[in-house]
C-alpha cells in the first residue's frame, strides 16, 4: 500500500491504495468518479483516457504510484460550473456521442488535441483521436464535433488539468 496525493479535477486528495492499483480503478472505486470507462484493460481503446499533468493517458495502464503528485482531469472535471464545455456542447449538437461509452475518453482526447493544435487539420484530428476507439459513429460525427469546437472560440486553458 502507498500513500499517494492526487489533484483530481482541481481538488487535492490523499489516498492509501495498493501501489500497483490501476489509476482507472483508483478513479472509479476510491474516488467514485464513474465517468471514466473501462473498454479493454490493455491500453487499446482509450475509453479510460484521462489527462494527467495535461498529457492524455490510458488510466488502465497507469499504476497508482505513478500518479502520485499528479494533476488528473477526468470527464467530471470538464464542464464549467455545471455548464457544458464547448467541446461537450459540440459533441452533443453534432452527433459526436452515440452509445456514449467512448465519449468521456474521446472528449478528453479532443481537449488534448485542441490544446496542442487550436486549429487542427483533418489529419491532425485523425491522428489525435486514433488512440480512442469508437464502434458507433465511424468517427465522422466526432470529426465534425471537433471541427466545430475548434471554431467555437475554444480556450485551451479551460481544461483544469
Amino acid at each position, binding site marked *: 500500500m502507498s500513500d499517494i496525493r492526487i489533484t483530481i479535477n482541481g481538488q487535492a486528495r490523499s489516498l492509501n491504495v495498493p501501489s500497483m492499483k490501476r489509476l482507472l480503478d483508483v478513479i*472509479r472505486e476510491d474516488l467514485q*468518479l*464513474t*465517468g*471514466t*470507462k*473501462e*473498454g*479493454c*484493460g*490493455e491500453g*487499446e*481503446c482509450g*475509453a479510460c483516457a484521462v489527462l494527467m499533468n495535461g498529457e492524455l493517458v490510458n488510466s488502465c495502464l497507469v499504476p497508482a504510484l505513478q500518479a502520485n503528485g499528479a494533476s488528473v482531469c*477526468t*470527464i*467530471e472535471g*470538464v*464542464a464549467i460550473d455545471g455548464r*457544458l464545455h464547448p467541446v*461537450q*456542447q459540440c*459533441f*452533443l*449538437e*453534432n*452527433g*459526436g*456521442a*452515440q*452509445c*456514449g*461509452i*467512448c*465519449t*468521456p475518453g474521446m*472528449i478528453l482526447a479532443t481537449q488534448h488535441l485542441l490544446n496542442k493544435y487550436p486549429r487542427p487539420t483533418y489529419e491532425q*484530428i*485523425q*491522428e489525435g*483521436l*486514433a*488512440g*480512442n*476507439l*469508437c*464502434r*458507433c*459513429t*465511424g*468517427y*465522422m*460525427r*466526432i*470529426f465534425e464535433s471537433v471541427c466545430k469546437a475548434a471554431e467555437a472560440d475554444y480556450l485551451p486553458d479551460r481544461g483544469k488539468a
Partner: protein
Amino acid sequence: MPENSILGSSPLRKEGRAKVLGEAKYVDDLSLPGMWFGATVRSTIARGKIRKITFSQDVNWSEYAIVTASDVPGENTIVHLTRDHPCLAAEQVNHPEEPILLLAHPDKKALLAATAGVHIDYEELPGVFTIEESEAAVENGDTERIIWPGSDAGGTANCFKQYLMYSADAKDTEQGLALAFENADYIVQGEYSTGAQEQLYIENNGVIAECNKDADGRVTDVCVRGSMQCPYYLVHALTLVFGLPEEKCRVIQTETGGAFGGKEDFPSVIGSHAALLAMKCGHPVKITYDRAEDMAATTKRHPSRTRHRTAVSKDGKLLGGTIEFAIDGGAYATLSPVVLSRGTIHAPGPYKWPYLRVRAKAMATNVPPHGAFRGFGAPQSLFALERHMDKVAKVVGLTPEELRRRNFLSTGDCTATGQPLNDPVDMQKLLTRALEEHGYHEKLKRFAEENKHSSIKRGVGFATFMHGAGFTGSGERRLNSLVHVEVNADGRPNLLVSSTEFGQGTNTILCQVAAQALSLPYENISIAQPDTRVVPNSGPTVASRTAMIVGKLVERACKKLLTTLQDYASLPPQHTPGEFRKAAGFYVAEHGSLRSSVRYEPVKPIFWDDELYRGDAYPAYAWAVYVAEVAVDLNTYMATVTRFDALQEVGKVMHPVLAKGQVEGGVAQGIGYALYEKCVWKNGRMLNNQMTNYIMPTSADLPPIHVHFEEVPSAHGPGGAKGIGELPMDGPAPAILNAIENATGVAFHSIPLLPEDLFERFASFTERAHGGSEELDGSIDRDTRTEVDA
C-alpha cells in the same frame, strides 16, 4: 406549429447531455447494497463429456457461492427458438468457453484464483469446426462427428435449419431453370465466403441480478438490470430457468454502451447466470466480462459460404440462377434459423430473376454459438451476390453498371419471394446519382491511366442492394407489439416502450414522433427507462424495426390520445402546449389517469406463407448504392479505402444527424469487415480475443464517408420513415472488393481480405509471370471453381 417541423430536424439526443458529461450510468457504474461479484468457469475443450469437477485445496470455498447445472430450479436451458442450449453444461460441453460452473464472492479480486482452482476432467470427443467438416460428417455418416442431433423444433443432424426458396411454384421453377441453363449464352459460377466478425461494442456484456425467496427458500421473483437490447427476451429466458411466471421476472435496461446485435440474445445467458448466483448467495450479484472473456465466449457474426450458378444471355439478362447459402451457426441453434432466413431472402438482391432457387442451411460446429450482428445474414449473402454480379458482367463483357441496369427490380415487379413492389423503387436513379456523387466514371478512366505508372493501384467499385425493415414475414404479427403513451399530472407525455437506446437514437426519434403527432415541443416529451414492470412488450430492438414499426405505434398511440382529449377534455383541433397541458390535467383529474395504448396492425395487408417460404417478406425495403474508392499498395500489400459514398433511400429521414451517424458507423463496420477484422480460430477457440490483435478501424484508418439520401416517404413508418440501422452493413464489403478488382485486375472472393492474403495471391502471380509480363492477369482466378462459357 408548422407541419413537419420536428420530424426531419435534428434535435439534441435525449440522453446526450448525460453522456457528454460522463454522468450516464452504465451497469458497471452501478452498485447495490451488499452486492457480490460473479465469474464463470468455462470449458477448456471444444467437445467432450464432463467426467469430474474437483476443487483446489488452496481456496477457502466456504466463502464462495457455487452454482452448477443441478442448482437450476427450472429448466436448464437458454431459450431462443429451441431449447437445445443449456444454461450451464451438465454432462457434456459442445464448444470452448462453454459455461459449466458459476462462482460469486463479495470481493471481485477473489474470483480470479477461484476460477483457476476449479478443475474439470473431460473425456474428449472429436469436433467439427467448419461448415465443410460439419457437412462431411453428415455425408460420410460419421456418427462420432454428428455434434447436434436435430431437435423437436426442427433441424436434422448437424443442421439447425434448411430453407428451399423458389421464385415461383417449385415444379415450374425447376423446369424453367433447366431450360434457362440449357439455353444460356453463359453460365457463370462462383463461390464466396465471409468470416466471423466481432461486434466489439466498447462496453462489454454486464448485468446485476437480485433474487428473492420465500420462507421455504423457494425463489419468488428475480430482477436483472444490465446492458441489453431486448428486455423481454431476458424475461422469457428467466421464466424457464426459474420456473416463474413472467410478472415475477423483472428486467431493467441500463444505459448500454453499444450492442449491434451482440446484446440481442447473449444477455439471456449472462442474465440467467447472475440471477442463479443471486439465488445461491442471497445477495445482489454483478457479472461484467472483461474484454478477453467477452470476445472469446460471446456471439459473433456467422461465417458463410455462398455458391452461385447463373444462366445469363449474351445481352446480359439474368435467365435463371441457383444460390447455395450456408452459414456456420456454432454449437447451438440460438438465432441461426432466423439469421439464415434473412440471409436467404436477401440473397437474390435487387434484381429480377425469372427463375431462382435458393437452398440455404445453418450448420452446427463446435465453436461458441454465432448470433445477431447488424445485417443478420444479409451482409453475407449480399457480399456473395454483389461480387458475383461483377463477375457475371465481366464474363458477358458488360460494365458492372450496365449489367445491373439490365436486371434491376423496379416499381410493380415482384421480388424473388413473390412480393409485389407496390411502393416506388428506382434503382436506376439511385445508381446514376451515387456514381455521379462519387465521380465514378471520371475516376474509372483516370485510375486506369495512372495505374500503368504506379505501384499503388487505385480503383473504384460499387454495390447495389436493399434491406428489409422489420421482422421477416409473419414475424411482426406474431410479436404483436404494444406501446403506451401516458400523460402525467404535470401534462407531460411519457412514452412507455421496451425499445432500447444503445446509441442508435431510439429515445430521440420516438420522442420526435410523439412531439410531431401531439403538436408539442420535442422537449416536452419524455421516454421511460425500459423496465418490464413499467413498459409493455413492444418487441425486441432489432431488425431495423424501431423507427418504422415501433415509431408507427407511437404515432398511432399519440393520435388516439389527442382524439381522447378532443372528445372528452375540449382540446381544440389546433392546440398550444398550454391548452394541451390544461386539457390533460382536466382529464387526469376527472379519470385518475390518461393513457393511450395501441397494438401492431399492418399498415397494408401482408401475406406470408411460412411453408412455401413465399410472400411479402418485409413491410418495406430500404434501397441503396454504395461506392468505394481504394488504393492497393503493391509494396506493402495494404488495401485502403480512400473515399466512400453511401446513397440510400430510407423513406423520410427522421433526424438527419442521427441518420448520417447510423450510416457512417455501419460503413465503418463494413470496412472493418472487408479489410481489417479477422477472427483467428483454433479448434473452435478464438485466438485473437483482444483489441490488440483483433483490429477494428481507428479514426486514422477510415476515409471520408459521404452520406446521401433520397427521400421517398413510405406508408409503413411514422411520417414516411423506413428502417435504416442494418442497411449500411450490407454494401461496403462487396463495393470494396469490386474496387480492388478494378484496381488490380485480380478478383478476390473472401473476406476479411488482409495484406497477407493479398501478398499470397500477388506473390503467386509474380512467380507465374516470371520472365513474362508484369501485368496482373485477372482471368486467372484460383478461388472460384469454374467459369464456363456455354
